[in-house]
């Protein structure tokens, strides 16, 4: 036994970066339950959903998925445009049940990538689960092994770092010759762009000066990709610090920074860039004190505070230093469409904004088969940050979510904002909309209550706003099939010019990207 002084203290083993999982609203009934009772809730959820599905086929999109979807050519209705060449990728939670248990929140499900490959005369679909470490381990045991941000598993395995429970289930972007499945609390997962086979967990700093300094850091699910290919992103630390990333189009690190946002809200989903700045918009969320036994129930770890203004942190893209800060009215937004900046420094951005986080409870209720209204839907608000420190806000009538702009206008002035809303359906978004942000005019197509519309994406070969197509999936409830819809981007109201059908439905997803050939 040597007694030596040179041993470095193994200090600073910080808390796991798990407190910034995709989170939900506090579920009060969970707080004081025993672990056994919490586990029972998962059994109850499975039974309740199964029972509800028999009478409410509208729940189909949240059905559990047991396997991959092999490549299959879709049946085309209408004329497939010959100037769409590439692959539409989508990601979303798909594995909700194991054994007799069902997750209590949609966001806990393991991610599945669905791809739609466009050739001249056909569209081919395939879907594959992301083979994360968690997914592989649970597949082998055929049961849930880890507690999630809401669902508490009895005898859960320990979670020593966030990637242990990385579900890679939120978004997917093309990077170099791969695709990256994105979560928001841990690493990206690299996959083969053609086969959808999982390749590796991305260590951002590998083979760079950063080495392992970026390994396992939160890499959020809504990177902003500039016209030059640079990939900008952020990652939230449990401490309230925020890492900022600038990657090349090949996924190599160009610059990394860190700011102390002192953010206690635990969840930060999206952000924005202009041509000069990064905008980190902190919603009105704050820490919710919980006793130690509930430390893992992350949905209990934060709450909405109507007295807490939203903060906008304006960060210089070159130095990654905080330059300015603005306060906005209290609010919460999952998603932002775009930001842009005038020559005098005035900044404009849009948000799909809400004044509560009730939607998180509702998404949990859906998992148990309880249909909810869309009363808590956000709406589009257009914000201006003036150089004198003042702000203005203009709200657009109607609800809106999943905002998208043209790829070449990310961080540049956009006039069109594509979103989803609901018109006929009480439970789902059934309408695609293009808002002219200058005039306030809307161009809409209502799928109707028989459809559940998912995020639609702009596909265009030109750098001209308004040209090209809007492409997106929708689940047709009566026939239990998913279809892919292609609209002319400048005339949504005319309906899809082409519709391609699968013979079955695929799980409702979250976000995706188009990779042109």
């Amino acid at each position, binding site marked *: *036994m040597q007694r*030596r002084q040179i041993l470095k203290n193994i200090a600073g083993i910080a808390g796991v970066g798990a*407190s910034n999982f995709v989170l939900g609203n506090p579920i009060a009934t969970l707080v004081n339950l025993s672990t056994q009772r919490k586990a029972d809730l998962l059994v109850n959820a499975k039974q309740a959903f199964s029972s509800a599905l028999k009478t409410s086929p509208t729940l189909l999109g949240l059905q559990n998925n047991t396997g991959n979807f092999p490549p299959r050519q879709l049946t085309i209705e209408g004329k497939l445009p010959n100037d769409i060449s590439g692959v539409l990728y989508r990601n979303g939670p798909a594995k909700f049940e194991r054994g007799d248990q069902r997750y209590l929140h949609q966001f806990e499900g393991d991610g599945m990538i669905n791809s739609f490959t466009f050739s001249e005369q056909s569209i081919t679909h395939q879907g594959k689960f992301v083979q994360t470490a968690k997914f592989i381990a649970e597949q082998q045991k055929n049961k849930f092994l880890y507690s999630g941000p809401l669902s508490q598993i009895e005898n859960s395995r320990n979670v020593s770092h966030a990637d242990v429970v990385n579900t890679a289930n939120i978004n997917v972007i093309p990077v170099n010759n791969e695709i990256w499945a994105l979560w928001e609390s841990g690493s990206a997962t690299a996959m083969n762009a053609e086969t959808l086979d999982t390749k590796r967990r991305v260590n951002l700093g590998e083979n760079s000066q950063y080495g*392992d300094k970026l390994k396992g*850091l939160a890499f959020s699910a809504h990177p902003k990709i500039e016209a030059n290919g640079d990939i900008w992103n952020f990652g939230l630390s449990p401490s309230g610090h925020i*890492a900022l990333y600038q990657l090349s189009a090949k996924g190599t690190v160009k610059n990394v920074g860190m700011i102390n946002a002192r953010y206690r809200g635990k969840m930060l989903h999206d952000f924005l860039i202009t041509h000069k700045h990064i905008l980190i918009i902190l919603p009105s969320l704050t820490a919710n004190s919980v006793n130690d036994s509930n430390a893992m129930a992350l949905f209990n770890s934060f709450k909405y505070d109507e007295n807490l203004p939203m903060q906008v942190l304006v960060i210089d893209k070159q130095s990654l230093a905080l330059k300015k800060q603005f306060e906005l009215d209290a609010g919460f937004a999952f998603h932002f469409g775009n930001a842009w900046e005038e020559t005098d420094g005035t900044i404009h951005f849009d948000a799909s904004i809400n004044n509560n986080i009730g939607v998180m409870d509702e998404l949990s209720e859906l998992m148990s088969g309880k249909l909810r209204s869309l009363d808590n839907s956000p709406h589009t608000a257009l914000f201006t940050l003036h150089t004198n420190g003042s702000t203005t806000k203009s709200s657009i009538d109607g609800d809106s979510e999943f905002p998208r702009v043209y790829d070449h206008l990310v961080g540049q002035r956009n006039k069109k904002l594509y979103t989803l809303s609901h018109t006929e359906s009480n439970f789902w978004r059934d309408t695609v909309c293009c808002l002219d942000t200058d005039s306030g005019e809307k161009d809409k197509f209502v799928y109707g209550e028989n459809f559940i519309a998912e995020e639609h994406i702009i596909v265009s070969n030109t750098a001209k706003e308004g040209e090209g197509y809007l492409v997106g999936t929708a689940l047709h409830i009566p026939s239990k099939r998913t279809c892919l819809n292609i609209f002319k981007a400048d005339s949504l109201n005319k309906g899809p010019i082409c519709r391609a059908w699968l013979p079955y439905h695929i799980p409702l997803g979250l976000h995706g990207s188009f990779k042109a050939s």
Partner: protein
Amino acid sequence: MNSTLTTICSIAILFATPLLSAKTLEFTIDGIKSSKGKIYVQLFKGEGNYLSNKAYLSSIAVAKQGQITIRFNDLGVDDLATDGADANDLSNDYAIRYYHDENDNASMETNLFGMPTEGYGYSNNAKANYGPVKYSQIKFHLASQTVLNTSTIAY
């Protein structure tokens, strides 16, 4: 004469034996993924010393893929503390933490958020779980002559 010497030696050995019984701790680490670098192990005596990073004893072993066992001898006697540990801490609690210094730079690598990026672990096979381990999870007593403790390293 020879017999007398033998007797004297025996007496000397007898008196040299400490009044407190010295104990041995064998700490086994398994799941080591490579033979690169070294394994740094710290033994703490009492929670106060653990929280203030004052190791009672330290050990460095050459890493070996799979499993290694570290022995701490002569525990339980009134030993001089090292690394600034409080020698007056009469607690019989001990605790271990360790890490695998794969790149052999005598420090545990962490990422920008302060999370370890090299393998690490604790006595009682305690694991971090949505946060650091607590002392209560890793402490143990020298309850027998030879104490065995194990841990599977987490990378």
